[in-house]
């Protein structure tokens, strides 16, 4: 009897401690959870709900089912910004990754003035996109800008780089690659510096050439890093729109507009919240798909280890 009572008392005590720990934990989490619920989870839910209702500057309009989505699929601008976004991603991601890898390999070797070179590559990363856009805007200014001055010196006609639908995207891509490559470089650099030196020694003994070694050993070993960077770069390509506000306003004729910028325009220039919510749902779904890819990939990596 006494033993049972003692066990019960201990169990009771443990339960109380556990409950106390629980309360304690929730109190510690409270500020974070309230803020996250207010600025992440509620907005996500509200976006979905609002995409099912008609417009209205204040409050909800009438329930319209999937009409907003039908309108979106009929909206040529939506398809154009989506296409632009894919072009933007398809160009910036591989370009910045290839450059990042090149930079990392160069900086990883014994190089005179390595610190300076690394600094040069990384500096654009810490600058505000809005400042970068201002600087590059000047390069692209027709006639007066740097690019046209060079062309002028070569006897070529001036060109409105950002005003021409066929060149505007390329101009923005070059700028973004310039800004991002150095950021991705540091991940490659970290991976390269963690590679066991024995590999290199073994390759030297075997007489493997440097290019062969890079292609058959270094590059495959960097694959996880490459995947990691690719996913981050893809996510970034959906978030980077600051430059559009300054340089093109999405123009000419939406040729440089991206999905998030279009959302911004619809919401805060045309004040069509219902449609902006519908577009935001698309963006959320796209980002969720990318994140899911990331999780699947990470799971697989754990399996192989």
């Amino acid at each position: 009897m006494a033993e049972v009572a003692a066990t019960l008392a201990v169990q009771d005590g443990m339960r109380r401690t556990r409950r106390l720990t629980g309360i304690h934990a929730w109190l510690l989490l409270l500020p974070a959870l309230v803020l996250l619920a207010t600025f992440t989870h509620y907005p996500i839910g509200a976006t979905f709900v609002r995409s099912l209702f008609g417009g209205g500057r204040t409050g909800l309009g009438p329930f319209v089912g999937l009409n907003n989505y039908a309108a979106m699929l009929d909206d040529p601008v939506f398809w154009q910004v989506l296409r632009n976004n894919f072009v933007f991603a398809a160009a910036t991601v591989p370009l910045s990754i290839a450059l990042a890898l090149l930079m990392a390999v160069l900086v990883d070797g014994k190089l005179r003035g390595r610190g300076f070179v690394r600094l040069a590559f990384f500096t654009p990363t810490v600058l505000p996109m809005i400042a970068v856009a201002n600087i590059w805007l000047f390069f692209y200014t027709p006639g007066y800008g740097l690019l046209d001055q060079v062309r002028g010196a070569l006897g070529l006609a001036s060109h409105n780089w950002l005003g021409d639908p066929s060149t505007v995207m390329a101009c923005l891509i070059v700028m973004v690659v310039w800004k991002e490559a150095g950021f991705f470089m540091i991940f490659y650099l970290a991976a390269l510096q963690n590679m066991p030196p024995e590999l290199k020694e073994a390759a030297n003994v075997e007489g493997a050439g440097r290019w062969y070694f890079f292609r058959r050993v270094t590059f495959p070993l960097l694959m996880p890093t490459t995947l990691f960077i690719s996913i981050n770069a893809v996510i970034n390509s959906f978030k980077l729109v600051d430059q559009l506000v300054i340089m093109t306003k999405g123009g000419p004729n939406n040729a440089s507009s991206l999905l998030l910028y279009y959302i911004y325009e619809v919401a805060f220039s045309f004040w069509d919240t219902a449609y902006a919510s519908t577009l935001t749902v698309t963006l959320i779904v796209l980002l969720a798909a990318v994140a899911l890819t990331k999780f699947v990939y990470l799971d697989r990596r754990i399996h192989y280890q």
Partner: protein
Amino acid sequence: MRDRLPMLETVAAWCLAVLWLLPLVYAFWSAFHPAEFATRFQLTAPLTLENFARAWSQAPFPRYYFNSVALVLMVLAGQLVVATLAAYAFARLRFAGSNVVFAFVLVQLMIMPDVLIVENYRVVGTLGLLDTIPGIALPYIASAFGIFLLRQTFKGVPNELVDAARVEGASSLGILWRVFVPLAKPTYIAFGLVSVSYHWNNFLWPLIVTNSVESRPLTVGLAVFGAPETGVDWSVITAATVMTMAPLLMAFLLFQRQFVQSFMRAGIK
């Protein structure tokens, strides 16, 4: 060990580095020279601070600086407190549903406040915080990323240290403050640098929320100042651009190693 790079590659590395710095060099050139030398690169061109003086007097840059500093500090202070408490709960306390709640937190890594501009504008409006600095800061105060980083760090704190502090009679919060926080200093520095750079540079959300000189951070102030309608001289705009970049750029040049390591630590999750 590492081979010395062949001459050709050294030259290539240097060329690429110079090419990478050119846009910045150009910005400084144009900011520190009279407007007529904006595109004429003569070494004899006179240096001047005139562009800075004009930018400084034509727009309320002192106020923008103040706003940006206030914004960055407010975000950072809030993030550190909120993330420390939450990370401690996740790393050290066992409670029912902790995994579910953690997943709930991680949603923010996937859908960042940056893309929820439409609804967050409404939320901030409901709270009556439109056009205020707290209104810009609030959506970012709870940082899933900060919670995640600190949780990882706190998990690695040896139990012996915690037990020792407990024997000495420290309370739970006392242990957090005296054992966990000091040990997590490198994580705090890494997160702090990334957060400060992010919010100093952030643009779209502050642009949406703010509407007046009293709340605009530097990035938005620069965009308003440089808008083509204003007809401001190119050299003056570049000077303003340099002013916007300068604090972060100087911090970066001074603490280069910490910056690179912080971004690396922050990126590898």
